[in-house]
């Protein structure tokens, strides 16, 4: 095996490892395409393997661009909060817009999960779970020390058992609304999302 082959194989092995999370077929397809790219570029005797690998960038950064692109694409069509949160988290690493979208996503999903949890807790903690209102108070929460049977208390529970359907509706709306909003933002800023700035050298007119 020549030094060139060894350097190429080492690079491709790193790329294959860094593409974890993708299917075996996807990974091998990507690795083969990059292998063919390197071989074709190597056919020019003026170009060294070091230059070619530098042009491709570090294997983990190249893999990250693939993973981000696929993840964002999945998130645009997925209704899974996990997939959407992973995509926004990846986006958050690329700039301020991504970070803001991530904060919106995490806030929306936490609200949704919070409402659903309250609906689930109501049968088990009926006296402590509810919509609490009073002077300076208006919150859906589990409140130790409150009671739904004492409306004269400064802070009292308002909804009673209606809390369950109200929280189920609000929770579902929060989850669905957050998903739709993030999918809209992923489409709206589609060209900004999948690119991760790489650190290798580039000419003045180059786009990374």
């Amino acid at each position, binding site marked *: 095996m020549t030094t060139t082959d060894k350097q190429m194989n080492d690079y491709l092995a790193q790329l294959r490892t860094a593409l974890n999370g993708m299917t075996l077929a996807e990974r091998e397809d990507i690795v083969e395409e990059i292998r063919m790219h390197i071989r074709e570029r190597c056919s020019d005797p003026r170009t060294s393997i070091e230059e070619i690998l530098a042009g*491709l960038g570090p294997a983990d950064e190249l893999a990250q661009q693939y993973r981000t692109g696929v993840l964002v694409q999945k998130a645009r069509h997925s209704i899974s909060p996990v997939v959407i949160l992973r995509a926004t988290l990846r986006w958050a690493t690329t700039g301020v817009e991504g970070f803001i979208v991530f904060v919106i996503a995490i806030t929306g999903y936490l609200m949704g999960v919070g409402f659903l949890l309250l609906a689930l807790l109501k049968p088990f903690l009926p006296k402590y779970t509810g919509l609490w209102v009073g002077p300076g108070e208006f919150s859906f929460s589990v409140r130790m020390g409150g009671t739904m049977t004492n409306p004269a208390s400064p802070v009292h529970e308002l909804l009673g058992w209606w809390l369950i359907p109200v929280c189920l509706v609000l929770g579902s709306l929060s989850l669905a609304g957050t998903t739709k909003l993030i999918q809209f933002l992923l489409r709206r800023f589609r060209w900004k999302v999948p690119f991760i700035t790489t650190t290798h050298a580039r000419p003045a007119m180059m786009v990374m």
Partner: protein
Amino acid sequence: MAQPKFSAPEIETSDKWEAQMRKGCLEMAVLATLWHGRMYGLEILRVLKRDSRLVLAEGTIYPILNRLRTEGLVQSQWVEAEAGHPRKYYELTQSGRYRATRMAETWTDFSAGLGLLIEPVLNDKKLERAL
């Protein structure tokens, strides 16, 4: 006339804006490159460089093509090449052709409108150089 001096942050902001603008055009450029027929990754890079002065980092084109494929805008196929090793060729799908057309129309309208707006800026710049 003395050339105005620009601070480093101003130049950096200008570079960033240019980089963002180019990124925004990448998808359209790649789809337009494939308009006349199928091509493989390295060939697309060369055409972009030759015809549009859009020089991509070599590692950038493949993730873009992969994303366009998952979006259904292009389709790919491995083909045995005369060079002795197979190449992965990409070609536009119907959706890809539609998207490329829409993008080209939008780009033309947008740049024509903006061209009128920036014309005085460019004219003044020419005048400054002449002086």
